[in-house]
């Protein structure tokens, strides 16, 4: 199950969704908003997505994880819009018969999600500016601070 949502992420609902009587292990990963990035203070983050592609990329990742590990149930949720400090922007959860597979599959899904799912983060700095986060993109700092 994959989802893009404007609402807060509920851990209990996710773990209840993936828990299965065939499985002994559930791993949930939450990516949460940090207040400080290299000593710069963030007041909030916002996320935007290319929604149809983000959805289909996440569905593909779910299929690939299920082909590679004995994953019974899988949930991937990315929150969009403003995500206040300390709240979760992303959740990945899987259930498997044994725990090693659950840790591996959840970790793999997060690595791939961060590489392949078209979602973008904007930092809103305590000092007032904003920055789109585009890892590795070469640009002048003025260009990255248009809004």
């Amino acid at each position, binding site marked *: 199950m994959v989802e893009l949502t404007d609402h807060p992420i509920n851990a209990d609902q996710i773990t209840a969704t993936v828990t299965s009587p065939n499985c002994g292990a559930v791993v949930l990963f939450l990516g949460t908003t940090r207040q400080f990035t290299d000593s710069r203070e963030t007041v909030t983050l916002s996320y935007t997505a290319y929604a149809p592609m983000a959805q289909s990329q996440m569905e593909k990742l779910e299929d690939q994880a299920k082909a590679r590990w004995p994953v019974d149930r899988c949930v991937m949720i990315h929150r969009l819009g403003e995500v206040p400090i300390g709240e979760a922007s992303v959740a990945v959860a899987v259930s498997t018969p044994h725990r090693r597979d659950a840790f591996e599959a959840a970790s793999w899904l997060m690595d791939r999600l961060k590489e392949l799912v078209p979602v*973008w983060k904007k930092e809103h700095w305590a000092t007032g500016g904003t920055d*789109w986060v585009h890892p590795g*993109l070469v640009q002048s700092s003025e260009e990255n601070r248009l809004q």
Partner: protein
Amino acid sequence: MNVRVKLFALTQDLAGTDEVSLALPEDATVADVRSGLAKLVPALEAVLVGCAFAVNNEFATNDAPVNASDEIACLPPVSGG
């Protein structure tokens, strides 16, 4: 033919719009979309080399053909998670 290209995040801000239309030859590829975008929106030129492209919700390399009916997207480096 005319193709429409969706823009996101920084590329959207630099272009001041979330979609542009490009006039391209019939046998155009993603590489032509790149160069067409750079010409139409000079502000994008510096960052396009770092952007990926998608055609119909799939990542597409420079040699991938594009058609007028395709949904084309310019994707700056992603930062979800």
